[in-house]
């Protein structure tokens, strides 16, 4: 499958003649993922008694949250928002899931709930931070991912628009997590009221620019998936009812539901509530997308913001290829070049110094010679002077008798003493 010279960088579509077998790759991925197991972290937020524990236990058909114990009435005020998590390893058809559910008891229960989202936001960000720290480790073979994949927010079935606390919470968290708002205790609203309520909620969400998680179809999806996604989308926000108990229907069958004096509401009946749709979206069709969005979009945005705020600047030099041999060769060459340069420099300096010294010596030599000449001439002059003086002295001493030559030996003194 060589590319022709015409499109050196382009990708061509080629047809194969027989069965090669790489289409088995997804199965390999599947087998490996199944062996490894999955993890999924869910957070539930809503005021006390709205049905968080019941819904989780109903969704996973396991008692993840134990029954609430009855505490005697006490004068203790509600102590702020707590963030607790419960993990459970559940298995279905050979697929192992480590499910972690993070509960937020105390949210919205106090008289003053002004900063009720603060502990929750901090918890979500600290999980991002933990992952970021792990990514920057030297040994990254074991990264444990406990980032929140989705937050289920429970809305009270008031029938009016969203409350202040709902709007504030969602506005602060929608860029950090996949937000899935649901209408809790949906059995209190009639079908007509529910429709109006959902419309009001969506209007409020749009008005405040809150991004909630929605299943979207792209061009690669088959028409079935597209239809499914559209159906799910039409029911958002889901109005759900949860129940761990089984009740008997009129025909005697046992179903999960709630029994009232006026009838039975079934959890898994799509005409009664949207539980099935929620379960489908959360677990059966969009779990992977939730995890993917958390990893690729939400986490990346958080990471970028965090690094920028810490002062890191994008340094593209880091991304050049690193080959150790080439690097060593380059280093050696650089080193040699440096040495040569130093050598040349030193010899140049040396030459210069020698030159200077020579010049100096020459100069001093000339000076000495000049002085020597001068001194010689002075001496000559002095000798000349002395000769002259001698001659004059001899000439003035001529009139002396010859007799005096003998006594000159002794009278020389007298003649000369006459001076």
């Amino acid at each position, binding site marked *: 499958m060589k590319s022709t010279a015409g499109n050196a960088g382009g990708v061509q579509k080629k047809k194969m003649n027989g069965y090669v077998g790489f289409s088995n790759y997804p199965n390999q991925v599947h087998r490996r993922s199944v062996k490894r197991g999955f993890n999924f972290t869910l957070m539930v937020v809503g*005021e*006390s*008694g*709205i*049905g968080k524990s019941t819904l989780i236990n109903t969704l996973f058909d396991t008692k993840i949250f134990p029954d*609430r114990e*009855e505490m*005697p*009435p*006490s*004068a203790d*005020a*509600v102590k702020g928002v707590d963030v607790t998590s419960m993990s459970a390893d559940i298995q279905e058809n050979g697929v192992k899931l480590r499910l972690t559910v993070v509960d937020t008891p105390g949210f919205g*229960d*106090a*008289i*003053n*709930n*002004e900063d*009720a989202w603060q502990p929750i936001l901090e918890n979500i960000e600290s999980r991002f931070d933990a992952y970021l720290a792990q990514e920057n480790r030297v040994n990254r073979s074991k990264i444990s991912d406990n980032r929140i994949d989705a937050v289920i927010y429970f809305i*009270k*079935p*008031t*029938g*009016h*628009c969203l*409350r*202040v*606390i709902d709007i*504030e919470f969602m506005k602060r968290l929608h860029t950090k997590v996949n937000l899935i708002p649901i209408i809790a*205790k949906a*059995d*209190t609203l*009639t*079908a007509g009221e529910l429709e109006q309520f959902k419309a*009001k909620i969506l*209007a*409020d969400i*749009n*008005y*405040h620019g809150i991004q909630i998680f929605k299943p979207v179809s792209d061009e690669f999806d088959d028409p079935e998936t597209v239809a499914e996604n559209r159906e799910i989308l039409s029911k958002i926000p889901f109005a759900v009812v949860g129940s761990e108990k089984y009740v008997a229907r009129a025909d005697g069958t046992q179903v999960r539901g*709630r*029994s*009232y*004096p*006026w*009838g*039975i*509401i*079934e959890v898994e*009946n799509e*005409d*009664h509530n949207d539980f099935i749709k929620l379960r489908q979206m959360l677990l059966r069709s969009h779990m992977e997308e939730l995890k993917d969005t958390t990893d690729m979009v939400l986490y990346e945005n958080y990471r970028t913001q965090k690094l920028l705020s810490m002062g890191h600047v994008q340094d593209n030099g880091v991304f050049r290829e690193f080959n150790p041999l080439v690097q060593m060769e380059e280093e050696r060459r650089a080193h040699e070049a440096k040495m040569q340069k130093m050598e040349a420099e030193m010899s140049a300096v040396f030459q210069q110094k020698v030159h200077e010294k020579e010049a100096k010596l020459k100069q001093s030599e000339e000076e000495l010679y000049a002085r020597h000449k001068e001194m010689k001439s002075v001496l000559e002059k002095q000798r000349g002077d002395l000769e002259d003086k001698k001659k004059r002295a001899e000439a003035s001493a001529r009139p002396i008798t010859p007799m005096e030559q003998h006594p000159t030996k002794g009278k020389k003194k007298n003649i000369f003493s006459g001076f």
Partner: protein
Amino acid sequence: MSAPEVQDYVGFDTITQQMERKFLKRGFNLNVILVGESGMGKSTLVNSIFSTHLVDSQGRRTAQEVIRKTTEISPVTQTLEENGVRVRLTIIDTPGFGDQCNNEGCWVPVIKYIKDQHAAYLARELKPFRDRIINDTRVHACLYFLNPGSRGLRPLDVEVLKRLTEVTNVIPVIAKSDSMTTDERTLFKRRVKEEMAFHRISVYPYACDDDVDEDRALNASIRDLIPFAVVGSEETIDVDGTVVRGRRHGWGVINIFDEAHCDFVHLRNFMLRTHLSDLIEVTAQRHYEQFRTSQLRQIKELRDQQSAAAAAGAVPPGAVVAQQQPPSAPLPHQPMAQA
């Protein structure tokens, strides 16, 4: 000593009819305040109790509507007539109560309103020339709406109930009780009663008012039902030929008049058919008297202070005399409003 026997028919037993006639002529006032968060079903319930569309829901209907920042007091007065008996019914709604993130002090406007009505009545009572019939705007009953599904009373409920029960007759109700099964309802009621006993919150009817045996039995059964788990509805639906007030779900129909479905009938009978005059009387005898006593005591203290200051300082006696006139509104009940 037994009462002496009356020989002939005297006729003083017609006093009940005389009173009735006077009552029919005059009519009476009934003032009910609704306290609860938005979306609890206050308007629907009150419209159901009186079988009339009295108040509109004040909840936020569109995203563009501004969210209220404080508790507003909006009284609506209408005159209803039934069999010649006229009632001037005032329903006081409290939109904005408990709807904020920070609900500290959201009860203050409510308490202030109730006390203002007492104060207004007191002011008119203390006038030298007072009206023969004072228009009674005092709050006779307060329907306090509890949140179904909570473990019992929330911290906000405890704070507000403590203060409300001191100034008016409080009747706790759960308006949207169709989200609770029968077992959950029983558990919730028990829980609420436990917590009210723990926090010493006494709601109407009061235990000390039971003087007659039959009253005692009735009141005991009422107290057993508290808080009333009701469902409100203004719509009528057709159930197998019969027309009932209720709600239609996909899995069943709630008939609010059915005692097995909810306590609506009990609440309505209690409020209107058995304890209506008692509510008005207790307001006058207990809450108003309490208020009056504390107010007059405060006035007396103030006066004592001022006369002491006048005796000590150089305040002219004219000022002291002026204080002895009955004070016009505003009475010094503002300090109490901080409670």
